[in-house]
């Protein structure tokens, strides 16, 4: 990967100065928008009544309730990632293999909802899933059920809504790789004696691995920190790290605790991104 990259051109001193000046605004934005808040977050999380303190972390990582909150967030992310992958991987192939108008239509259906805020989408799901919502009324009208079935505020509702909201982020990177995939690769494997299952496992899957890794990392880090979707679709029954952070800042006024929860959340997301890019390199995927 690295050796195939062209070496950057050698810059003369004045050029170097210009390049530095030109990159300053971007560097400032990065500093102000990301590095500074992160530093602050880290600082606050280690602050107690008498200066430096590990109390927030101790409380978060030893109280059974908060451990189950961390597990809730992890579980939501794992299930959402698995589900969006199982739907998104074949869907990426369907979109990539579709011709002209169909392809545009499918991409449109997938990406147009991204323009709508996640709150709108989560509310849409509550309207669908409510006890007097569209699904329940239809089922009752058809006589399939006599009483409304509880759908909203269940883990099923949470998973369905979360998978729906995050699916495009799984499909986009996988589709980008699949669209570039030479269909002759599978045929070449077949001509060498690979049946369709073997051709998939030995060629298609490893060649599309970079897209899978990007999609998994993206959906996992988005869903592990999801706030709106769990709050609207399941609420108090399923406390997550993101909800805990909000509560610590907005209700209980415990900034150190909120910051510590934020750091834990961030660490999980960073760990997943690092792990998946490691895995990508060892699986020998294309960059």
């Amino acid at each position, binding site marked *: 990967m690295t*050796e*195939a990259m062209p070496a950057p051109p050698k810059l003369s001193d004045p050029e170097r100065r210009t390049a530095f000046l030109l990159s300053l605004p971007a560097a400032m934005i990065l500093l102000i928008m990301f590095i500074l808040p992160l530093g602050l977050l880290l600082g606050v999380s280690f602050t107690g009544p008498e200066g430096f303190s590990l109390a927030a972390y101790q409380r978060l990582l030893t109280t059974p309730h908060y451990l189950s909150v961390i597990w809730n967030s992890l579980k939501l992310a794992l299930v959402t990632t698995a589900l969006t992958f199982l739907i998104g991987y074949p869907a990426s192939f369907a979109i990539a293999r579709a011709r002209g108008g169909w392809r545009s239509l499918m991409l449109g259906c997938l990406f147009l909802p991204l323009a709508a805020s996640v709150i709108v989408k989560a509310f849409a799901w509550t309207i669908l899933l409510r006890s007097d919502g569209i699904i329940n009324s239809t089922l009752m009208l058809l006589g399939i059920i006599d009483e409304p079935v509880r759908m909203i505020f269940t883990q099923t509702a949470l998973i369905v809504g979360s998978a729906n909201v995050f699916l495009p982020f799984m499909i986009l990177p996988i589709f980008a790789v699949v669209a570039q995939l*030479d269909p*002759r*690769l599978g*045929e*070449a*494997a*077949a*001509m*060498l*004696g*690979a*049946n369709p299952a*073997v*051709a998939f496992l*030995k*060629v298609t899957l*490893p*060649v599309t*691995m970079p897209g899978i890794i990007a999609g998994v990392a993206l959906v996992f880090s988005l869903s592990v920190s999801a706030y709106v979707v769990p709050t609207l679709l399941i609420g108090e029954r399923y406390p997550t790290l993101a909800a805990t952070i909000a509560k610590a800042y907005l209700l209980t006024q415990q900034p150190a605790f909120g910051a510590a929860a934020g750091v834990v959340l961030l660490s999980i997301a960073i760990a997943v991104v690092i792990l998946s890019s490691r895995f990508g390199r060892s*699986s*020998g*995927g*294309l960059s």
Partner: protein
Amino acid sequence: MTAPDAGLHLSISNVSKRFGATTVLEDIHLGMAKGELVTLLGPSGCGKTTLLRVVAGLTHPDTGRVELAGRDITRAPPYKRNVGVVFQSYALFPHLDVAGNVGFGLKLRGLPKADIASAVHRALSLVHLERYADRPIRALSGGQQQRVALARAIAVEPSVILFDEALSALDRKLREAMQSELRHLLTQIGATAIFVTHDQEEALTMSDRVAVMYKGRIDQLADPRTLYDQPATAFALSFVGQSLSLKGKVVSSDADGSVVETSAGPLRVPRRFLRGSSVIVATRPEHVTLTAGDNTLTGTVVGATFQGSRSLVEIDAAGTRLTAEMPGRCTLPERGETVIFSWPLSETLSFSGEEHA
């Protein structure tokens, strides 16, 4: 199962294929002996790739039969055919290194590691890439990738190897070098192979026999010499080598042949045609001399170029441009000069004008 024709290694009979309303292959027959090299030659879109894919099992024919090494493989899936393919795009596996690509088929056959390694080495040394075994694919040049694709195909010792415009992505010089090298290599390992190309020079260099394809049919299947000297159709004439041709109507016909009235004058052809039918009269440029002879015409010289071993004289004969080939050392006529030129009756080719080219 019927016994295959004696000596036929690959036999394609009665194969047709339609995509929707278009007939892409029409009643194709092709038999090949073991160790034979055959080229499918024809313009883009005539069905060459489709025929190759039928042999590979990647496309199913609507009718017909394909037999390989005495086995009916018409319905066999591609992975059970033992047919090798070198694709135009090479289709190398980007996630594997050179050895991984070449050993892919051997690994699937469950061979012991040591056997795979030695077979990979053997295949790579045939294409002079033994030192590249652990290179990633993207670090190779186009020519090297082409060789890896070839090594990957021959490593599993397929019954027949198919090449779909496998050399067309290489630049001219490399392509010409690869043509003779590839032919030598395939002969050396006794491979049976079908090449697909739209490049007539490649077809003549590479193969024992050439199948000229036009609009889904095989117009002519012959060795290169016969193809050049006795093209079966006006299309085969125009597609292989240079030629000069004139259209006309038959004015008289007897036991020895016919006389065709063309815009440039009457020409004799050594073949009987119905009076009044339209006929294409042709010959090869090297048969033309600037003297009177069997078929003599008059024309104006519009250009003459010296090309070393030969010279080309371009003549306008009553509105038809014809190119004659002269020995390099002869005195060339001036531009604008009126000349008589001719070619012998024995070198006169004729085709029914109904079969358009």
